[in-house]
């Protein structure tokens, strides 16, 4: 192998340079500009996965069972969500659609997780604010906010029926899960969550 070939092969592993002109491709091979609604949604799903990874690390440090196991699954699931979103319903082959189909079972799993954690939490009486809750909880609140952004961006696709309902419902439930998870992590951290009492006043 010549020196030039060797270099080229090494480089092509990470940077293919095919996106240098501002386009990228979906799972079905279709190329679109990077500011397309699909890439906005995919980017935010990616961002959510990254923040979930940070939250997971903090849960591991805090030894917050069973959140560790749940978050490990969710970080991986973000790739499935991404794959599903990256396969538009209107112009993808049946083989692609079949491969990236998102099961509605995950929604039920989330609901089960929400219920199991929620039953251990005190009832909510106020708008809560992520203050003095520990890093795991703070990052889960951050993840919740990003999850909502992902959901908003996915609505731009779902109103045109470009992505399946299951995945939108999943994201709606995921933000609920992250809200409960954030409270759960705070409780595990031994912190009382702050709450809002109106016009800039805090209660603790």
């Amino acid at each position: 192998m010549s020196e030039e070939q060797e270099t080229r092969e090494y480089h092509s592993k990470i940077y293919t340079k095919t996106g240098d002109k501002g386009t990228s491709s979906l799972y079905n091979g279709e190329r679109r500009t990077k500011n397309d609604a699909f890439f906005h949604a995919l980017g935010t799903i990616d961002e959510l996965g990254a923040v979930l990874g940070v939250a997971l690390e903090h849960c591991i440090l805090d030894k917050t069972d069973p959140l560790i196991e749940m978050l490990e699954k969710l970080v991986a699931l973000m790739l499935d969500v991404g794959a599903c979103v990256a396969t538009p319903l209107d112009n993808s082959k049946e083989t692609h659609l079949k491969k990236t189909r998102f099961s509605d079972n995950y929604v039920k799993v989330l609901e089960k997780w929400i219920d199991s954690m929620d039953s251990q939490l005190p009832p909510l009486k106020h708008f809560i604010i992520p203050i003095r809750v520990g890093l795991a909880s703070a990052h889960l609140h951050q993840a919740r906010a990003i999850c909502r952004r992902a959901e908003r961006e996915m609505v731009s696709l779902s109103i045109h029926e470009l992505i399946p309902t299951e995945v939108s419902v999943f994201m709606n439930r995921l933000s609920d899960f992250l809200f409960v998870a954030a409270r759960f992590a705070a409780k595990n951290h031994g912190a009382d969550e702050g709450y809002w009492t109106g016009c800039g006043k805090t209660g603790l």
Partner: protein
Amino acid sequence: MIKHSLSFINKLNSPRLIINNYSCSRLNNSSNNLYNYSNSKLYCTTSTENNSSNSNDHHSRIYTKTGDKGTSSLFNGERRAKNDHVFCVLGSVDELSAHIGVAKEYYLNLQYSGTNEKVRECKDQMVQQLEEIQCLLLDVGSHIATPKDSADAFLKRSPFADYHVESVEHWIDAMDVHLPPLRNFILPGGNLQSAQFHVCRSVCRRAERDLVSLDHVDTVNPSVMKYVNRLSDYFFTVARFCVFLTNSQEAVYKRPKVPSEHESKYQRHLEKR
């Protein structure tokens, strides 16, 4: 009969009210029925209902599923698609509050070893300031979630005082006197706390940009706009102040050198060895 206001917070003693961020409520005072609007995160039972509640009751309080079809509702009860710009603004404000939460957790671990009493005072007050900001961001949210038609009635009930803007300005000034004058572009970093506050600053700017492109931006209380604008200045100052507290060096912008063709060849040669 049905009125919408934030005063529902004061009525919490009778109904059991479950709220997530950016939910707002309408209360029918006579029967304590609660009209759920916003992102489907509001659930209320009266105490009698609570006694007879079945197991589903408990579950439905977090996920009401009303948002599954991609819509959510505003302060006046109007439902809109979740990709409506108003939710984009509300979401950004919510995201900012979440980032402040993270930054503050880091800030609680920051130690100041100096002896300046004034500096120590600033340092000690900051947690309280951040909490006040997080609370006020909920007020900012309720102002944004109030479109034109219902703005007048709402603003009378829920004023956002210019006083809050002035407070932030005083906080900035109190910290700024201790900081070395700005001569260069500052780079995010210096320590973990500072880096997190730079994230807050940039998320705050995004919220502000989203806010400015809101349809009913002209009906949003000018103090709210000023407040959001002042907040990014506050986070910039706080970020610098964190570096100052630990006596660390601020990283400043230097123009990165572009290697000549000859140099880059040499660099590749070195890497290969």
